[in-house]
């Protein structure tokens, strides 16, 4: 197996998942992943492949996000539409969409550094790698993650509770 194939086979699924979670769109995630691998192939030898790939992908996301805020607005619009649709009669698909909407809003409520640390950790990056990508001390990654996980869970629970309340109000 060539280096190219190994690199792709090893990291592509995790990178696409990471990007999908960050961006909320699979096509966009695959575009960024593709661009990341193109750059990796151009780069040649990488000292720390996983860190390099996730760092480049993160930077590409950041640059893209700066350029086009409309995407976020559109995602927020979709979430609002899903909320409205909920009143009419939920089904499994809609329930899943609502869960995803709650999760997205919870994730978006985190500070950028916390969000990135959480998503990178979920893809199995270890603390030194996360520290390198975020430019923070390795010793502070645990604190960053604990804060991110707590905030994510609390915000998500609040979203779910608010949704349930809206459902009750609509029913009464």
């Amino acid at each position, binding site marked *: 197996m060539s280096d190219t194939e190994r690199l792709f086979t090893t990291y592509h699924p995790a990178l696409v998942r990471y990007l*999908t979670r960050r961006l909320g769109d699979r096509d966009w995630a695959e575009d960024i992943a593709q661009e990341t691998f193109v750059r990796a192939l151009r*780069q040649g030898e990488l000292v720390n492949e996983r860190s390099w790939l996730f760092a480049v992908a993160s930077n590409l996301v950041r640059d893209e996000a700066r350029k*086009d805020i409309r995407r976020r607005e*559109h995602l927020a619009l979709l979430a609002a539409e899903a909320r409205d649709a909920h009143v009419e009669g939920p089904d499994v698909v809609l329930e899943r969409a609502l869960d995803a909407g709650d999760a997205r809003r919870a994730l978006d409520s985190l500070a950028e550094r916390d969000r990135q640390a959480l998503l990178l950790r979920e893809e199995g990056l270890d603390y030194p790698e996360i520290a390198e990508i975020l430019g923070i001390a390795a010793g502070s990654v645990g604190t960053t993650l*604990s804060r991110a996980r707590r905030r994510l869970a609390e915000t998500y629970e609040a979203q779910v509770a608010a949704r349930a309340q809206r459902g009750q109000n609509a029913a009464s």
Partner: protein
Amino acid sequence: MPLPDEGLIHAWLDGQLPPEEAERVERLVSADPAWAAAVAEARGLVAASSRILAALDAVPSGVLPAGSTKSRSAHRLPWWTKAAAAVVIIVGGSTLVMQRVPAPTITEVPKAPVPVANVPVTSPATSPVTSPATSPTALPVAPSAAETRRDIAKSTPPVASATTAKAAPVMAVPANQPQPQMPASIRERAEAPAAALAQRQESRAAGGVASGSAGALQAQRVADQRMDMQRAAEQQAGAQRDAAAPVMAKGEAQSTMNQAAKALVGVAVTGAPAAPPLTVGACYAMRDSRTSAATGIVMRGEKQVADTLFLAPLRPSLPARGWVVLRDGVLRGVLTTEAEGRGMVLVTAAAVPCTTP
């Protein structure tokens, strides 16, 4: 007993503490109920976070506004890049037409209506985009220049075949001489500088990638160097053509231009003329690089950015896309198909004639 440290507990649960530190936390958790409670809560947060994030994996594709994903790179282009591309396209198109029109010294000019007349839109006199810096209409004109390019591409083959068929005896061009690839070459010349500019602009825009990364800077330098080489080759080819045109027979001029175009491909795409070129418009058969099995999919070079050729399916109905780069003399890349649940495979590619399998 120290108070529970949440960061330390998460690091311990994640298995990221050195052995001595992990043992110390373990002792604290065993001995102190406050630490044990904090660990239980942290375990819950870790599990909840993973579950919440997993909900994000079920997002549909294509939820973005139409065009925003597919044409993102086009949106990135600043007006001056579009204007520069338009100028190159128009100059290239005009050159093509001028080379195609029979020289006045040839008496047996075919009387049949030749589609050359369909291309006056490329005449410099009707092209305000040639001065984009001073023209406020440069931006709106750029897309129509792209339309013009498509018109040229569409109308050129009939021009070539009609001219060659009618003028062959007069011009003493051998009947079995391969048809020149000028339309594709011109297109490539027109598109490559714009693509290189866009690539460089992209690289600069991705400052986060470049900053602190010597590799990215090196890639930037290589991209710049390639563009400079490409410009030099273009200038040389243009100078050769200009010098030769008045005295050269038409067939010779075409041959020279073909050679120049081939040289350009070698410089622009691979950096090594001996390597097999990536060509916009050419077709490639895809082979699964792991199993070496032919996929039966033929892709056409759609767009080239630096040394990467982006591919579109030869059969437009096939839901596939991909890209290849040249590595160690082999075209390697990725093929994405949506036919069976969005599969992605690593592929090698080989140039083939553009015929639907």
